[in-house]
């Protein structure tokens, strides 16, 4: 199947086409106002005018399309089913997750991911039930953007991507690499596979959006500048996620083996 026919790749191409004509740059404040200049540099958002336009478009789409869909999903589909869907989607992400764990040189995380896949695919009935978590193999987030961060790649200026939302060059590249690296992007062909891929994609959107219904509504209600608030939250959250991965130095010694002394650190 040529790459452009894959749903996610098609979408990525469409986004790039959309983005082109919209490029505009923020005007830095006058140099005689050093504090304003410091603020401008700290915001690190040279494409702010473009980003804001894309935020508005996304927000509009969200209001008329995604939010109602997520509300319906929440109202119509019972909670246990939604959890099952979430777990299946999470299980499908295992190959990419494992690849990143390995590239990040996090053996314990890679072990967790492997055990989660083996346990949840079998005992958990193709991933519907997260049995592994109860057995001591918790899930964790990772992606190639995070891997790049651990390799020392800086995030770069803020980007608000059409449809995808807050990002930056590093995380956007990481997202693309994850899509290409995902075996499910390439496995099989034909209408059925395309339909399955689109279903996975659509369900992922519903699953994620329905989890943030309250959080997003409350931000939009209480923030004076929701765009800037989302920008700040994205960055802080990302930083915390990266630090959590960086500091995850749990050993890989089996529980029945004498445990090495854990060195306290701060």
């Amino acid at each position, binding site marked *: 199947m040529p790459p452009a026919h894959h749903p996610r790749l098609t979408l990525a191409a469409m986004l790039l086409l959309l983005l082109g004509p919209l490029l505009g740059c923020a005007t830095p404040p006058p140099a005689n106002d050093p504090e304003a200049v410091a603020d401008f540099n700290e915001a690190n958002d040279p494409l702010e005018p473009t980003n804001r336009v894309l935020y508005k478009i996304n927000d509009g789409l969200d209001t008329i*399309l995604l939010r109602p869909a997520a509300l319906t999903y929440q109202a119509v589909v019972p909670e246990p089913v939604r959890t099952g869907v979430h777990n299946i*989607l999470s299980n499908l*992400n295992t190959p990419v997750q494992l690849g990143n764990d390995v590239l990040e040189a996090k053996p314990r995380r890679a072990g967790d991911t492997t055990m989660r896949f083996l346990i949840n695919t079998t005992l958990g009935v193709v991933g519907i039930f997260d049995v592994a978590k109860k057995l001591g193999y918790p899930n964790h987030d990772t992606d190639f953007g995070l891997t790049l961060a651990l390799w020392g790649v800086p995030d770069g200026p803020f980007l608000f991507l059409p449809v*995808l939302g807050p990002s930056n060059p590093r995380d956007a590249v990481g997202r693309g690499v994850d899509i290409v690296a995902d075996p499910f992007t390439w496995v099989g062909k034909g209408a059925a596979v395309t339909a399955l891929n689109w279903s996975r994609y659509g369900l*992922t959107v519903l699953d994620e959006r329905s989890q943030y219904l309250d959080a*997003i509504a409350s931000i939009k209600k209480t923030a004076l500048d929701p765009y800037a608030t989302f920008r700040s939250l994205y960055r*802080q959250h990302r930083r915390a996620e990266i630090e959590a991965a960086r500091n*995850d130095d749990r050993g890989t010694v089996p529980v029945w083996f004498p445990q090495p002394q854990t060195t*306290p650190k*701060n």
Partner: protein
Amino acid sequence: MINRRASISLIAALPALLTLPALLALPVGVVHPAQASTAGDRAAAFIKATGAKLVAAINATSGSPAQRRQVVGEIIGSTVDVDGVARFCLGRFWRTATPAQQQQYQSLFRTMLIVNIASKLGDYQGVTFTVGATQDREAGEIVSTVIARPNNAPTNIQWLVANATTDPKIIDVIAEGTSMRLTQRDDYASFLSQHGYSVDALIAALHNQLSQAG
């Protein structure tokens, strides 16, 4: 959380603000045994007591909104350094604001905080929390807690407590890695930069928001 790559929520790939169970499992509060000093212990005890007060207020939801606001106002007044947080959130503009503006702003900030928290109490019916490790930071003691709500993934919340040994006060709340006061300061800073750095415009906007919140 799943599948960040495909996390294409429209406005919000904006990931995982509040419910990111994966992070919970990570060693957030690794403490030097020697440093689990009285400051950390006192901060933890203080957060435990404050949490208990809030849970009591949540479960006593029979009151009218006005009553609830009064209770929340009392708890916040005695446990949060509201004026300090307000100053932090205004950032560099605090220095350039006139005393009248400062006073107006601080009073609005306090009311906003109380109204926002009081309006959310209902969502926290049946909440439980456990106090975990503490960490020593320059700004104060960080106390980690896990908040569990029925039908919600547990949330990792950290509380930054200043003056733990003398007059403990909360100066920040960090939810899944996102600091509330930092987020608020970024929000105000951006608003101000879009409105000619006018503190009066900010005060007007806060007024407006408050009147809409009813």
